[in-house]
């Protein structure tokens, strides 16, 4: 019998074609092929006969029981929903779902917060380092400006490097909180009328908003910058 190039593709679909489980377009293609190909038509006929025989055999099967036997039925009906199942269904499953609704957003929030906290700490550290450096650098810059003949700030607010230790000691006698805020915190204070003096630690001052002047300028806050 003459075969067609399409036969190998058609043959696997013959059963689905006969049971009506193919999409309409594919079924139409198979139908068209069967009109042309005698070999596939014979094959389809054989499969159709087998399917009919099977349907009849499966429909009329006296050996298969129709009901559970009474003892088994009684055993099934004697089973109560287990306490474990009730506990699981009524309590644990809802609790697990609720926990997921709480834990997942919390984890997402934490994942969003933690990097920003880490970044902020890193930025604070860097800025603090920078402000510490700026604190020294600012004085050097002011000295440079004065070398070029500029007057930086009121004269009484300016101190020479030689006066720095004395000024530091002067500041350290101030009460807590008056000296440097977060950055350079006071290293000494007065408690119950007794002066407490500690080693001054060289720490950065503030959040990098430039060097915070240890003493406010006397001329209304803005330092003068002009040629003397």
């Amino acid at each position, binding site marked *: 019998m003459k075969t067609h190039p399409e036969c190998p593709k058609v043959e*696997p*679909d*013959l*059963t*689905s074609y006969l*049971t009506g*489980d193919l999409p309409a377009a594919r079924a139409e293609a198979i139908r068209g092929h069967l009109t042309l190909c005698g070999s596939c038509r014979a094959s389809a006929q*054989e*499969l159709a*006969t*087998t*399917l009919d*025989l*099977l*349907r*009849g*055999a*499966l*429909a*009329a*099967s006296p*050996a*298969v*029981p*129709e*009901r*559970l*036997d009474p003892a*088994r*039925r009684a*055993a*099934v*009906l004697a*089973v*109560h*929903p*287990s306490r474990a*199942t*009730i506990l*699981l*269904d*009524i309590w644990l*499953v809802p609790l697990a779902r609720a926990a997921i609704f709480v834990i997942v957003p919390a984890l997402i929030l934490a994942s969003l917060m933690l990097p920003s906290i880490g970044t902020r700490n890193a930025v604070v550290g860097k800025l603090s380092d920078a402000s510490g450096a700026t604190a020294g650098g600012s004085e050097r810059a002011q000295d440079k400006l004065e070398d070029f003949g500029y007057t930086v700030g009121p004269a009484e607010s300016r101190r020479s490097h030689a006066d720095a230790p004395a000024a530091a000691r002067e500041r350290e006698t101030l009460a807590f909180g008056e000296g440097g805020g977060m950055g350079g915190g006071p290293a000494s204070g007065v408690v119950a009328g007794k002066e407490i003096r500690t080693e001054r630690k060289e720490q950065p001052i503030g959040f990098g908003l430039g060097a915070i002047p240890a003493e406010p300028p006397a001329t209304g806050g803005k330092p003068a910058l002009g040629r003397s």
Partner: protein
Amino acid sequence: MADEPRDETSEAKPGGPAETPAFEDVMARHETALLRYAARLLNNADAAQDVVQETFIRLHRRWGPEGPQGDHVLPWLYRTAHNAAVDFIRREERLRKLHESAVEEAGPAVTLPATDDPGERTRLALEHMARLAPAEREVLVLRLQDGMSYQEIGRVTGRTVGNVGCLLHHAVRKLSENLKRAGVL
């Protein structure tokens, strides 16, 4: 367990003492189909009773708001019966092989002449179907006996639609060739 009757729509609210009537209704409605399916799959009527009993016990244990309800009950039952049958086959592998060898020893299709007797043809068809692999028998039964679609068979057996179609075709093709050799076709 059963203190008050419940209608069909109330089967979604078991868990208390009132679930038995609806559960019994579900059981009565589906047990025949499940028994036929399991018996065909296992080639063993007693094993089918065991499998269906186990299936309904599992359903009864889950009978509650979180269990299968409404249209989901039947697919759940078939899937559970499928799993129970697979478990049974694994446990009883040796007995299954003995059964298959017994079927082969009694295999008249190879030796007997062709017959036009419808009863004999039916018997031979079932015998040859019993020799197929369990997976092949299963898709045949679910499609030709229970009238399930490929999608429904896929949900019961855990196969893809394409795999179901392929398996079904191979089963029918193999059966067709065997029946032809036996003179049935």
